[in-house]
């Protein structure tokens, strides 16, 4: 009998398990290990069918622009024209949706960066304007952070940002963020 597959963090063997701030933490870095991820692409000519199915199953409209919509444990982030990155903190099965669905739970890593100095820390890695008037909660950007392709969104006004990258880049991205946060009181801890 083959052993059951066990989800493992892509970071544990590669990064220091804890970097603590002296005094108040300006920025907190964590790995999200509680998310199921799926990439969903609309099939040509069946875009409406997918949008209808998502509305019926989850009660949300698939965003047509670079936004992220949340419905209970489930969220859909725009990931390019006709593509979305679905995430869920529950046991949600996206495979019944009428589109091309591929599970990314172990393919991508999600890093969460939050706190009063989160924006300043990310600004050293990302060349987009993250000022609230340009990028707010619910906004999504497909860009790169220190040359690593990321899907970035702001999930609350703390502010909390989440960066989704391919699994093999997670440790490098983590180290970049930890380095950028070193002078801003970073509290980085593996889950």
């Amino acid at each position, binding site marked *: 009998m083959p052993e059951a597959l066990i989800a493992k963090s892509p970071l544990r063997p590669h990064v220091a398990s804890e970097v603590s701030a002296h005094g108040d933490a300006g920025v907190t870095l964590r790995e999200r290990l509680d998310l199921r991820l799926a990439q969903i692409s609309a099939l040509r000519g069946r875009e409406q069918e997918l949008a209808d199915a998502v509305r019926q199953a989850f009660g949300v409209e698939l965003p047509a622009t670079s936004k992220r919509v949340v419905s209970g444990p489930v969220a859909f982030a725009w990931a390019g*024209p006709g593509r979305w990155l679905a995430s869920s903190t529950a046991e949600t099965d996206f495979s019944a949706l009428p589109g091309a669905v591929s599970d990314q739970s172990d393919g991508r890593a999600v890093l969460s960066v939050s706190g009063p100095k989160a924006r300043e820390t990310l600004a050293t890695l990302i060349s987009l304007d993250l000022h609230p008037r340009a990028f707010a909660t619910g906004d999504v950007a497909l*860009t790169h952070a220190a040359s690593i392709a990321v899907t970035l969104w702001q999930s609350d006004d703390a502010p909390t940002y989440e960066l989704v990258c391919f699994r093999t880049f997670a440790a490098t991205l983590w180290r970049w963020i930890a380095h950028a946060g070193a002078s801003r009181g970073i509290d980085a801890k593996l889950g």
Partner: protein
Amino acid sequence: MRIACPHCGPRGVDEFSYLGDATLTRPASDAPEAAFADYVYFRDNPAGEHRELWQHASGCQSWLVVTRDTRTHAISQVEAARDVALARSKGAA
């Protein structure tokens, strides 16, 4: 240089990769060899407006047709390559 991706908004050129001339069309399969040589090897090098293919490689990965002045790098138009191709095939039909 910044390119206004029709899907993502204006982004730095570091997010894009360049392919080349967007005005080329593949000759018919029975076209003479000279037409294929022209299609594969020969390129104009205009000083002025040029239509070229770019990909928003570290963004939404869309292919774009960018109209750029090669002397000033001023970009006058950015279209999704898909729309350009669809319009072209409609025009041919």
